């Protein structure tokens, strides 16, 4: 009977596919738009960052840096691909005005000389392309790291800098004994500093279910490294969790049609138990949600070049989550048989479940009360968090437990929905 009910709903959808086509296309379009905004089409991470370097310093060392930068234009470990163009100021400004580059980095005249001799304050200039948002910000952050490192060097090696300056000014006729002595002294200083910088005093490691305290830990080789360090996988999982709720709401709204058309009533004149009818509607919702989930996670994966680490677990968890979403909205329909009133409330419920469940924002960013007392009890959190752990956390994630929790919750909610419907029908529910 379940199959007959499911076949009926699939046939009806096939005959009137427009609403569902829109539902299926929306996640794809959203994913593509996000991909376009973040430049996801050029690689798995932020894509290629094209910027100009105007080197007005033109020292031997800056030439060395130029060669080094040119040789590392490939993708680095963080997925950021740099594409520097060394040119003059006029050409750089032309390129940025033509929106062909994300930023211009200007190394002013005598920059290195002033830096090494500490004769006067030095500065690097970064001109950001106002038409872009992410790439210039990434370059600014990167430049900030370089400046911090240069400040650290200046504080620790200031006394050695004049000697280095004389080596650099040697025009290729450097005193190798002097260079060796400089390197030797630098080595001594680094050795003395080793206890302070290795391991670093503060690093960030991702929370794991076993270690949810925000403690500061040293790496010691235990941090979970992941070759697929792709922020879009994190975003896409949360986005999918929220969107699947929205789609489940749309699918389960078909119950309102069944009520309006009296077909739900007619079913009851033939069968005593409401569970098969609701279960079939949930099955239909799950089928549609799996399709949408495949489009969103699969399509999004293609757009952002995400390599899903555990596709089987991911699919199974999506199935469990789809069951939960369907059962959740079945209860909402049973609680609010007035279609017009429920439209707003079910949207709010889905939004709340998504936001408080840490789908839109990392759960760590949520207020402490929510995080500690509510979020962790929400199925949207179970799903998104386990999916993210699977993607970033390795193989020891207890995803089968999450699946069990999702399926058990779905079963309870479905039975609850059937009981609520039965009670309301007995009291004279009419659409």
């Amino acid at each position: 009977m379940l199959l007959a009910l499911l076949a009926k709903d699939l046939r009806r959808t096939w005959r009137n596919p427009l609403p569902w086509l829109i539902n299926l296309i929306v996640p794809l379009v959203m994913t593509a738009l996000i991909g376009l905004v973040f430049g996801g089409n050029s690689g798995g991470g932020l894509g290629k960052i094209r910027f100009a370097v105007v080197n007005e310093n033109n020292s031997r060392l800056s030439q060395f840096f130029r060669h080094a930068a040119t040789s590392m234009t490939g993708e680095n470990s963080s997925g950021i691909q740099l594409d520097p163009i060394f040119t003059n100021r006029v050409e750089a400004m032309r390129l940025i005005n033509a929106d062909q580059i994300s930023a211009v980095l200007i190394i002013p005249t005598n920059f290195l000389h002033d830096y090494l001799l500490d004769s006067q304050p030095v500065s690097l200039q970064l001109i950001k392309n106002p038409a872009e948002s992410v790439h210039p910000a990434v370059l600014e952050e990167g430049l900030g790291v370089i400046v911090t490192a240069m400040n650290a060097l200046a504080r620790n090696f200031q006394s050695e800098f004049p000697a280095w300056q004389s080596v650099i000014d040697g025009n290729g006729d450097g005193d190798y004994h002097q260079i060796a002595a400089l390197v030797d002294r630098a080595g001594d200083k680094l050795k003395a500093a080793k206890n302070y910088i290795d391991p670093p005093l503060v690093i960030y490691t991702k929370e794991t279910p076993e270690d949810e305290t925000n403690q500061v830990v040293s790496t010691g080789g235990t941090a979970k490294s992941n070759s697929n360090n792709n922020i879009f996988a994190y975003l896409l999982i949360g986005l999918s969790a929220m969107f699947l709720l929205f789609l489940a709401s749309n699918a389960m709204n078909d119950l309102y049609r069944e009520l309006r058309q009296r077909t739900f009533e007619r079913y009851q004149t033939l069968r005593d138990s409401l569970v098969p009818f609701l279960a079939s509607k949930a099955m239909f919702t799950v089928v549609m949600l799996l399709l949408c989930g495949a489009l969103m996670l699969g399509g999004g994966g293609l757009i952002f070049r995400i390599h899903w680490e555990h596709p089987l677990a991911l699919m199974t968890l999506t199935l469990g989550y789809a069951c939960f979403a369907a059962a959740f909205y079945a209860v909402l329909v049973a609680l609010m048989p007035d279609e017009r009133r429920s439209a707003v409330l079910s949207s709010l419920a889905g939004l709340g479940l998504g936001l408080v469940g840490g789908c839109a924002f990392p759960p760590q960013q949520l207020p402490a009360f929510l995080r500690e007392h509510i979020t962790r009890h929400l199925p949207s959190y179970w799903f998104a968090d386990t999916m993210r752990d699977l993607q970033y956390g390795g193989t020891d994630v207890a995803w089968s437990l999450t699946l069990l929790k999702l399926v058990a919750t779905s079963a309870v909610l479905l039975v609850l929905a059937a009981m609520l419907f039965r009670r309301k029908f007995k009291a004279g529910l009419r659409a």
Partner: protein
Amino acid sequence: MSLLKVAQLSKSFGAVRAVDSVSFEVHPGEIYGLLGPNGAGKTTSISMISGLLEPDAGEVFVAGASFWSNPQKAKSIMGVVPQELAIYEELSGRENLEFWGRMAGLSPSDAKARATELLEALMLADRAKDAVKNYSGGMKRRINLGCALLHRPKLLLLDEPTVGIDPQARLNILEFIRNLRATGTGILYTTHYLEEAESLCQRIGIIDHGRVLAEGTFAELQERLGGDRVFVLEADFKNSSPDAWNGFNQRFRVIQKTEKQLVVAAIGTRDPSDCLKELLNLPVHVENVTLKRPSLNDVFLQLTGRELRE
């Protein structure tokens, strides 16, 4: 043994008493008509009989067993045709029939075979593959009826199955229902159409404000008015009262009195011509007298003081 026995069924919605101690029986091969105006409690009664609504009081027995002792068994015996079109408009007529057959517990092959039979019987075979949304009103009504018949129910509950369709389509459906009765199916038929109840039903219950006011065959209901004929007098009755006319109330029963019309039935078996003479001798200037067989409307009029069509 009756197929359906309804005993003292009652239901209230807040302060409104929708059904008040309704009792009747439906026997195999009988069409029992529940006749009443809109809001009389017909649909509420059917909803309680089919298990959609829980009664506040009273009992429903299907084939001798209490409905609530085994609802699924009772449901397997009955077929319910709701007043609204409870079908899927996107699906074809055949798909609708097969689907509801499956819901009634038929196997896929049985549902298919039975759907073919019903499509023929309902004269819809040539449109079987068309989506129901493209059907006429009468065709939709027929499919709506057919969806309740897949499992060959012994008891059929029909809630105003001919509402809103043209006379020809109505005649087709009524003929189909007569044929069902001939196969031994017991039918509870609610309607507010007098002609349907008169022509179709073996027994009729007149219901108003949730109460069954009278019940019986058409002849028995006519008998309540004192015979098989009533007299309709047209005159100015504004300033005259039948109570003031000497011996009138001993010889005639007043069914309805308005300023312009008086409807009466003779008490006892008397010759109509004698009755006519007596009426023409009344102390009012009678403009016209009509002799007619009493209709269900006259019965309803006598019971409620208003016409069924009001």
